[in-house]
């Protein structure tokens, strides 16, 4: 199919334009807004849009500037014939289509439209919603609309229906088969549905699927069987428990009988022991009694013998003791005398010491009195001085009282007042007129006063000046009232000064000054006096003096009261000090003597006490010896009276009786030991405990047995054995079912995987012819090192990847290419597609590039021209619309220019 020429009338901006297309490459140049894209759209609409289309698509074709309905006349070849389509779009059902076949008949409207579709091998596009997009999608792989050149070719690969054709073509070119049959598709879908029925996209078992259910059932069945087995095991356990408990009970019964036998034997032993214990008691009493009788006699005998011995010894001891007594008496008398002497010495010394102490105290008082007398003398002289200064201060105060009471501030006031008088006077005088007679031959009088030459007079009121007798002048001072006021001020000031002086009691200011100065001097003197008095202690010193006098009087009284004989009071401090020292020394001397005398006394006392004690001891010893002897004798007498002097025979009889009783006792005791009383008790306890333990164990066993029996008989609503059998069967079924479903699912997944894999492989093979052709074009652009990989998907071209030697053989996708390269690769892909599809269209199809290479630089443009040239060489009709015709100069083709149309009106 090849486009020949087109004429567009009243179509948007075009009033009428005609363009012819060459066989190979046609370049249509025109500036922006010249209607290039409109022209391309008009051709496309002539091919695909029904003339009777209504709605926005058809309305939009109308021209705003040119009268008449939009119409397109398109000449083309198809199916080896030449055709002309003429379509007029009215936007209503009145639009018309005619298709003229060269040398054949002309078809109209519906028939014409159908024939056009047949020639283009395209389906009717239909109407209604989205028609604009559907129309635009027709031959989208051949038609690069303005602004779409850089889009990935996959996204706008062969349009609706064309993909199928492409596949068919590719199939015929490649394996001679088709890409995927309808059955392939339907079976693959069913397989995917099966997989989706059991597994999620991520390969997990799908919730709610049969497999999921079977898995759950398997788990539930396993749990159920385990539960049933547990119940059965519990039941078994209960049965074993019953058996065990019954064994315990049986064994317990036997054991209890045996233990009871042991208890009876033990009881018999206990009774025998009681009998032996009774006999033992009796024999113990008999033996005790025999022993006591024997021992009593033997003890009395031995006692008498001992007493005899002691009486003899006491008599021997008593005689030398009497001699000792005499010596002790003498020694005691001597020691007493010595003690008396020591007591007397000590008494004398004590009296002397008392007196010496009193004297020393008295002397101390004297000394103190003397010291205070000295101190009083000092204090008295200071008091005199204080009184003298006091008198002086009093005199100064009297002087101050006699002076006028002028203070320095008063002087200041007076001076101020004086200055006011002076000022008032000066002011007044300045206003008054001064009359001075300088020289005159005649007498001159001013008022009442005669003026002498050189004498001046001041006047304040008008006065008459008489010069001689004839000349009378009247002089009046200026200033009017001011003069009078000045005079009043002067008077007032003068009066104020005078009044102040009178108030202060002075005549003049100088006198006031003198009085103030004198007053200041006297005040200073008085302050000096007062300070001196205070420095001397003033009142405190006087008080101290009176206290001291009292103290001295008190001491004198105490000294006078002292009852010491021959005491003469020392006069003066020195003497008093010496007397006190002497008295102190005497006290110390006497203290030493007294200490020595005390020691003597203590020694004498001890010796005396010792002698007394020795004497007493000997007396007591003699008395004791005598008493002891008497006692011994009386005790012997008592014993002899009790047992008699002759005792040997009776002693032997009693000893024999005793031995016999003791032998009997020992025999019975051995008999008792033979009965093992301690172990008997232990045995009894042990056997009793064992009996209780057994009985407790039996009680417990019986309880266990009852509980286990209750458990055994608890069944009723279900049979654990049956439950287990069912559980086992259910599990077996669940296992089998699960295995079957798993195997089926695995089979389905395997199928799904294989379908995917094989489909990919087939598609890869299908893409080969396309790859080869795209490769040819790309070599024109990138040289021989380029390789291309194309992935066909169900909907179109899935992806395109390039590998260039220059890029280190790393494949990269269409999206990662630059804008210019994308345009070029896209163009190559379109041309390759067109080449393949063209084989159903007489080997030729038009490929339209509307401003498709806006990003191409000059170097690229060269490669691009090679690409377009190759397309043309391979029979394609390449139509390039551009606003830059210079770029295609080297293509060696005719460039058709269209101008920006003039607009009517």
């Amino acid at each position: 199919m090849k486009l020949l020429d087109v004429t567009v009338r009243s179509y948007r901006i075009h009033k009428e334009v005609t363009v012819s297309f060459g066989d190979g490459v046609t370049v249509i140049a025109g500036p922006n807004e010249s209607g290039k894209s409109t022209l391309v759209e008009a051709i496309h609409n002539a091919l695909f849009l029904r003339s009777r289309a209504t709605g926005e698509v058809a309305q939009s074709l109308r021209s705003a500037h040119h009268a008449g309905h939009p119409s397109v006349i398109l000449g083309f070849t198809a199916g080896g014939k030449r055709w002309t389509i003429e379509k007029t779009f009215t936007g209503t059902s009145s639009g018309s289509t005619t298709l003229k076949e060269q040398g054949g008949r002309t078809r109209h409207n519906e028939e014409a439209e159908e024939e056009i579709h047949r020639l283009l091998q395209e389906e009717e596009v239909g109407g209604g919603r989205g028609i604009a997009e559907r129309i635009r999608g027709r031959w989208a792989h051949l038609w690069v609309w303005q602004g779409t050149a850089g889009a990935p070719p996959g996204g706008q690969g062969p349009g609706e229906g064309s993909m199928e054709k492409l596949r068919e073509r590719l199939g015929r070119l490649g394996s001679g088969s088709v890409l995927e049959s309808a059955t392939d598709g339907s079976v693959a879908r069913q397989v995917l549905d099966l997989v989706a029925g059991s597994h999620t996209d991520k390969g997990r078992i799908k919730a709610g699927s049969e497999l999921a259910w079977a898995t759950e059932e398997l788990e539930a069945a396993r749990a159920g069987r385990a539960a049933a087995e547990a119940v059965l095991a519990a039941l078994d356990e209960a049965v074993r428990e019953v058996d065990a408990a019954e064994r315990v009970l049986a064994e317990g019964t036997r054991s209890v009988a045996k233990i009871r036998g042991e208890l009876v034997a033990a009881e018999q032993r206990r009774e025998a022991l009681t009998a032996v214990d009774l006999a033992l008691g009796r024999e113990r009493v008999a033996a005790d009694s025999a022993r006591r009788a024997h021992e009593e006699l033997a003890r009395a005998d031995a006692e008498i013998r001992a007493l005899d011995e002691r009486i003899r010894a006491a008599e021997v001891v008593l005689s030398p003791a009497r001699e000792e007594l005499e010596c002790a008496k003498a020694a005691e008398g001597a020691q007493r005398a010595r003690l008396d002497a020591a007591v007397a010495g000590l008494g004398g010394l004590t009296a002397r010491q008392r007196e010496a102490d009193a004297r020393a105290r008295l002397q101390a008082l004297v000394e103190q009195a003397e010291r205070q007398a000295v101190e009083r003398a000092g204090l008295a002289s200071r008091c005199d001085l204080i009184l003298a200064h006091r008198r002086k201060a009093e005199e100064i105060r009297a002087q101050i009282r006699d002076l006028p009471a002028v203070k320095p501030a008063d002087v200041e006031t007076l001076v101020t007042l004086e200055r006011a008088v002076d000022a008032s006077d000066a002011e007044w005088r300045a206003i008054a007129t001064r009359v001075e007679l300088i020289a005159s031959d005649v007498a001159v009088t001013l008022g009442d006063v005669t003026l002498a030459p050189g004498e001046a007079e001041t006047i304040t009121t008008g006065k008459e000046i008489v010069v001689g007798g004839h000349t009378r002048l009247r002089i009046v001072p200026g200033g009017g009232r001011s003069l009078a006021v000045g005079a009043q001020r002067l008077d007032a000031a003068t009066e104020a000064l005078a009044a102040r002086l009178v108030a202060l009691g002075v005549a003049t200011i100088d006198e006031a000054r003198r009085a103030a100065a004198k007053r200041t001097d006297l005040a200073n003197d008085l302050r000096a006096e007062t300070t001196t008095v205070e420095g001397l202690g003033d009142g405190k010193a006087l008080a101290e003096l009176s206290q001291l006098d009292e103290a001295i009087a008190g001491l004198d009284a105490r000294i006078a009261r002292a009852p010491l004989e021959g005491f003469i009071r020392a006069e003066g401090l020195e003497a008093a000090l010496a007397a006190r020292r002497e008295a102190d020394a005497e006290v110390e001397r006497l203290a030493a003597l007294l200490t020595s005398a005390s020691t003597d006394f203590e020694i004498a006392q001890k010796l005396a006490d010792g002698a007394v004690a020795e004497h007493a001891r000997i007396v007591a010893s003699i008395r004791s010896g005598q008493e002891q002897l008497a006692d011994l004798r009386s005790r012997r007498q008592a014993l002899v009276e009790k047992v008699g002097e002759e005792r040997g025979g009776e002693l032997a009889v009693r000893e024999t009786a005793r031995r016999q009783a003791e032998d009997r006792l020992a025999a019975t005791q051995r008999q008792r030991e033979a009965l093992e009383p301690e172990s008997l008790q232990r045995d009894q306890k042990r056997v009793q405990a064992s009996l209780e333990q057994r009985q407790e164990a039996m009680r417990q066993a019986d309880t266990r047995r009852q509980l286990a029996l209750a458990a055994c008989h608890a069944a009723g609503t279900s049979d654990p054995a049956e439950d287990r059998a069912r559980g086992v069967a259910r599990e077996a079924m669940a296992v089998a079912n699960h295995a079957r479903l798993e195997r089926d699912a695995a089979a389905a997944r395997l199928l799904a995987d294989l379908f995917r894999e094989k489909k990919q492989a087939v598609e890869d093979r299908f893409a080969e012819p396309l790859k080869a052709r795209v490769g040819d074009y790309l070599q024109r652009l990138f040289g021989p090192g380029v390789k291309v990989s194309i992935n066909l998907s169900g909907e179109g071209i899935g992806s395109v990847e390039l590998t260039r030697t220059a890029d280190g053989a790393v494949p990269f996708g269409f999206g990662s290419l630059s804008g210019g390269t994308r345009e070029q690769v896209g163009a190559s892909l379109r041309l390759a597609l067109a080449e393949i599809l063209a084989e159903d269209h007489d080997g030729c199809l038009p490929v339209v590039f509307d401003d498709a290479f806006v990003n191409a630089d000059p170097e690229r443009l060269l490669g691009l021209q090679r690409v377009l040239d190759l397309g043309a060489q391979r029979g394609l009709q390449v139509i390039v619309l551009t606003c830059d015709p210079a770029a295609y100069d080297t293509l060696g083709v005719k460039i058709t220019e269209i101008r920006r149309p003039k607009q009517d009106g």
Partner: protein
Amino acid sequence: MTTFIHSADWQLGKPFARIADEEQRGRVQRERLEAVRRIGDLVRERKGTFVVVAGDLFDSATPKDATISHALAAIGSIGVPVYAIPGNHDHGGPDSLWERPFFRRQREAVAPNFHMLLERQPIERDDAVILPCPLLRRHEPDDPTTWLRRWEPAEGDERPRIVIAHGSTRVFGGAALGNSVDGEEAGQANAIDLGRLPLDKLDYIALGDWHGFLKVGEKAWYSGAHEIDRFPKNDQRPGHVAAVTVSRGALPVVEALPTGKLRWLRHEVTLGDDGPGVLNRILREATGSRYDDCLVELVLTGAVSLAERSRLDTLLDDWRAGLVRLDLDDSVRLTPSEEEMRALTERPDPIISRVAAELVARKDAGGEGAAVALAALRLLHGLCRAAADGGTSQPATGAAP
């Protein structure tokens, strides 16, 4: 002369858990009760004066109350005294169902003719002396008939003496004979030594435990189960009771009377070139018109193609629906035929043919992947066939192993 019926191994309440269908399971359980009622008919027909049941009346020692209740109702309907001993399944002892208050209450109310003999001591009847040898423990270590070795009958007592015992028997010191199916304990523990019994003092030994009708001595018989409860493994005659006529000092006259209704059949079929059709014929011949009374254990071997497998599955589904139970041991190999494989691998559909070829290769390679590959091949075959049928029928995704 005394006539009575000897039965055993009723095993009422047996769960038949491997019968998946609830209704059919209930049916098999009910038939065992019905068979008990049929014993009552035979008693009346033969003018028997009593019935002895030699153990295992119940399948478990812990049956449900409902099971006990139904059993007692059936026993009550027999009309004459029924003497029974516990067997290894429903053994005696303090933990046994016989001590359960419910059982005692219900027996009194519904089946006063029922005598459960739990002590090893003679029961005196006017027309017989019954010598019970109950199993009083789940695991009875000794021969339960030992007490009879020392038993002395009353002088001049001319009543026939009937022993009731349950367990395997030692015949002439040989291997034990007894019920050792379903993996139950082999009965060695409570084996009965017939040789050591004072046979001259006894007239009939009614045995239980072996599920077929079997004579094991001049005076000793196993009656077998009254209703069959398993697929026959050897030459047993289950589904009978023994009608016994006995006199003191004479050999008993014993006759096997059928009581069973359900038929338990076992078939081994090898599938080959003829396809699954042969199976259908065999089953039809074996079951006849009353296939709904039949339980079939089917062991399938051989090999089938993909299409035959589908037909086989359909066939098995049909039989499964009709039979009381179809117990299938399916070891049939799935071997796609050459044509089937070609039909898949040489299809015009480019993807399916390639997938099929890959699956065939994997199948042939063996190993772990082969089974999945085979299953996938089968699935693919089904899907293609469904597609060819216009996608109306959903392909079988493997209704059988």
